[in-house]
């Protein structure tokens, strides 16, 4: 294998690590937060508003803003992962909230009337019924994170963006494509797999 191919593979691996870490972090924070928000209508409105606003900040600007901040900022992967996780939060949280709140009132009432605990209602009724919507959110989160993660190279986050930035700097289309094509393929595969899962779990 020639050194260039090897380098692309290594960057792809790096890219996947960035995306997976960021999305897992977003789920770890977003899912419990979303469940809490389904039970508090007032908090829900402003919390989703805040997450919405984060989404509207251009990614390059958000990377720039975080750079000088101690602990969470600075050059490197950590800052990149934090920014990517912030972007992934909105689709994950919004879809989870919408999915759970969209369950018919009569179903929730039956669950309650049958003597299910809140915990049982959540795990046996709400999450399974909201699962297709939750997976749709996850799909949007992953596919868009794969794209946004290319920008992470601008702050030394590594990944496939490295090629894109290098290619732009040297006006070398081949190098740009070496970053862009694998990222696009990754996004398409993730999209297909999650779309299948979404269909599989829909009632």
């Amino acid at each position: 294998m020639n050194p260039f191919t090897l380098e692309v593979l290594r960057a792809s691996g790096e890219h996947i690590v960035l995306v997976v870490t960021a999305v897992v972090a977003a789920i770890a924070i977003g899912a419990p937060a979303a469940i809490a928000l389904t039970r508090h209508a007032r908090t829900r409105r402003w919390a989703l508003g805040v997450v919405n606003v984060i989404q509207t900040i251009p990614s390059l600007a958000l990377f720039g803003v975080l750079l000088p901040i101690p602990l969470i900022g600075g050059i490197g992967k950590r800052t990149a992962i934090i920014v990517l996780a912030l972007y992934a939060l909105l689709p994950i949280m919004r879809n989870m909230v919408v999915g759970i709140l969209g369950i018919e009132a009569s179903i929730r009432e039956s669950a309650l009337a049958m003597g299910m605990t809140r915990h049982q209602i959540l795990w046996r009724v709400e999450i399974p019924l909201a699962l297709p919507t939750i997976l749709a959110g996850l799909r949007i989160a992953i596919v868009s994170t794969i794209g946004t993660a290319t920008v992470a190279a601008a702050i030394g986050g590594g990944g496939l963006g490295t090629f894109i930035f290098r290619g732009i700097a040297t006006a070398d289309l081949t190098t740009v494509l070496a970053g862009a094509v694998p990222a696009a393929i990754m996004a398409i595969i993730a999209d297909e797999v999650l779309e299948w899962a979404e269909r599989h779990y829909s009632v």
Partner: protein
Amino acid sequence: MTAFVEFEQVAYHVDGRDVLRGIDLSLDPNETLVLLGRSGSGKTTLLKMVNGLLSPSSGEVRFENRRIAEWDPIRLRRRIGYVIQDGGLFPHLTVARNVGLVPELEAWPTQKIRARVDELLDAVGLEPGIYASRYPRQLSGGEKQRVGIARALAADPPLLLLDEPFAALDPVTRFDMQQHFLKLRKDFGKAALFVTHDLREALLLGSRIALLHQGRMEWVGERDQFLSATSPHARTFLRTLELESAP
């Protein structure tokens, strides 16, 4: 003798509106009491106070001689079967898992749950071999209600609450379900509170009838006496029968 379910001076207000006022009512074991009334008369509200889905604004509701507020709501609800108009079946679970849910929550052994599910599906007239593995979306309206009733009976609760369970069915299916309910009542011997707006159904299924009108108890008594009731709203309901039997 003390009553099985008892309402004492129950009132319920929401947004400054009286949904129920001064309700006194009791239910004996093995008795079917029909709560009859028009839409908005408060009959569903009254029903939901028994399993603690709603709490009275004032007055007391007791089940097995204990105030509802003193019950652990989870224990209380697992002792009471609940059937609603559209069945409220869980769309992501098969018929067998819907019916076996409360036994499953109560951690019955798998074999015992399976046997109980088959027994109940048989009892409501659904062949277990055909229906156990189906999903609610594959059932007709009448079949859904049968599953809903089987589910309510699953953990052998001494009391059933039924909220217009047959109201959305076509007349023939409804008649069939009513006959089935009578047979089930004979076989299983439960107390039941049955909400309906249909006098015909009330007369067919109730051992006693309680007529609610705008949150007040208008009339309570034996089924047969309802035909000679003199209260104005009872007369209104009776006129619906006359119209039906008119040539």
